[in-house]
């Protein structure tokens, strides 16, 4: 290999990346990465972290604890009864912003990480899309409770929902068994 070739080899190699058509595998990877990036963007602007990531006290006040990103209400934080509210108040939240008390009882935000036993690890894209579309747990079970903004989120396009799910399946799994909802005081069911 002469000097000229050696000098220009890296540049030629780089150029070839642009000049040659991408292999199907690379194109697929790129599309997958774009989908995940799109999902991350949507999760961020749709404020999913506001309720599904436990909050902690930070230097500037409460902030999402990203070490537990999107893992839902911490199983270590026990809540046994709805809040007692007086006056004009109708709802209250826990310091983590993951437990909500109101006329519906107490709701706990879900673990959205891909943990197989406590999160969305066994879900399919279909399960996720149906859950958002129907406002039902697992897509066809009990009604989801406030403050989950289903009336707004059910208007996501199919493409958006697929991207959000792809992103949620890409984040670190956190094992955290979120408790089931508590009924309102007058409805023990």
């Amino acid at each position, binding site marked *: 290999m002469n000097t000229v070739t050696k000098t220009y080899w890296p540049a030629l190699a780089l150029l070839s990346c642009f000049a040659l058509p991408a292999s199907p595998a690379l194109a697929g990877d790129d599309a997958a990465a774009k989908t995940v990036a799109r999902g991350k963007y949507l999760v961020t602007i749709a404020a999913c972290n506001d309720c599904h990531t436990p909050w902690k006290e930070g230097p500037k006040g409460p902030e999402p604890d990203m070490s537990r990103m999107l893992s839902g209400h911490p199983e270590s934080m026990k809540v046994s009864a709805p809040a007692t509210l007086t006056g004009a108040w109708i709802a209250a939240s826990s310091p983590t912003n993951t437990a909500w008390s109101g006329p519906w009882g107490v709701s706990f935000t879900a673990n959205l990480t891909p943990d197989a036993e406590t999160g969305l690890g066994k*879900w399919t*894209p*279909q399960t996720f*899309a149906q859950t958002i579309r129907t406002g*039902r747990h697992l*897509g066809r079970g*009990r009604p989801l409770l406030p403050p989950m903004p289903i009336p707004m989120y059910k208007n996501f*396009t199919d493409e958006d929902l697929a991207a959000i799910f792809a992103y949620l399946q890409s984040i670190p799994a956190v094992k955290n068994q979120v408790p089931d*909802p508590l009924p309102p005081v007058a409805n023990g069911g």
Partner: protein
Amino acid sequence: MRAHRSCLPRMLTVIPSASHATVIAATALALGAWARAASGDVAPLPEHLRDTGLFTPGTTEIDPRNLAFAPQYPLWSDGAHKRRWIYLPPGTAIDSTRPDAWDFPVGTRLWKEFAHTGRVETRYIERMSDDSWRFGAYVWNDAGTDATLAPADGVTLERNDAPRGRYDIPAETDCRACHEGAASPVLGFSALQLSSDRDPLAPHAEAQATLDLRALIERHLIKNVPASLASSAPRITARTPVERAALGYLHGNCGHCHNDNGAPVPVDLALAHTAGSDAASADRVLHSMIDARSRFRGHGLGSDAPLIAPGEPNRSVLLARMRSRNPQIQMPPLGTQLIDTEAVALIERWIDEQSTTSLHTSWESNR
């Protein structure tokens, strides 16, 4: 209800352990379906039931080309009286190559009428030329002379003859949630449900219609039926008559969501039997219930309560959820406000007659 609001669900089914790339590939497939659905190629559902082909034109009499049928394990719908019909285009036949997922020809139409004192609604599904299905519900007027298309988001009717004076017409998304969870979106029309070997203990059993599996075969309305199904009417294999009826009830009422051959909810519970419903099928179903623990704790039985506690109905989560109509607890979660007391009694009897040993023994002996 409007047609084709989403084709995403069926196209996006992937195995739970799918790799990231598989998820993305499935997503790409879904987007193709979504694009077709959004293209507006499909005509909207008719505004009136009379325009779906159910009646002889100009009447509310059923068109004789629509064939009545009755599944042996009907879905509990708060005691509503039901009638059902299927239409297969002339010269076509259902393909039973996959006996657990019958493939219906394009143009297939099915109707299910719900009535209390009078007719309340008629649900309708139809297979389209692109192989998708569309779903609609038609609400009858008080005079019983006409039924019109319900809103896609569903509607609650005030009906004095309905339980608690209220009747919920399901949203299209709820229709799809149940129908698209099974191996075939046509529920209640399968080899086991249409078997001529009817279960005498099946809750809410209806008179058998003339269109059973044998009739389908003889009239060449179905093809590629496995020889075993053609020669012997399917029947759930069980240790006792009570167990046969219990498993049949769970098949008909729960199997469309809890199965292992469709798009089930991810809870590791398979209550749908295979077409032949042989011993292996029963053992598969029993095995999924034996020692099963639910992630759901809201039933009040404690975190260690099993789905089925042999010999102990009151410790069995399955029964606790059947006995509840708290929307956060009840099973099934859709389409019912009233506890199915006849079914609860059957399941109680079944659990009561079990012993841990016999259940395990049955499963182990057939492995």
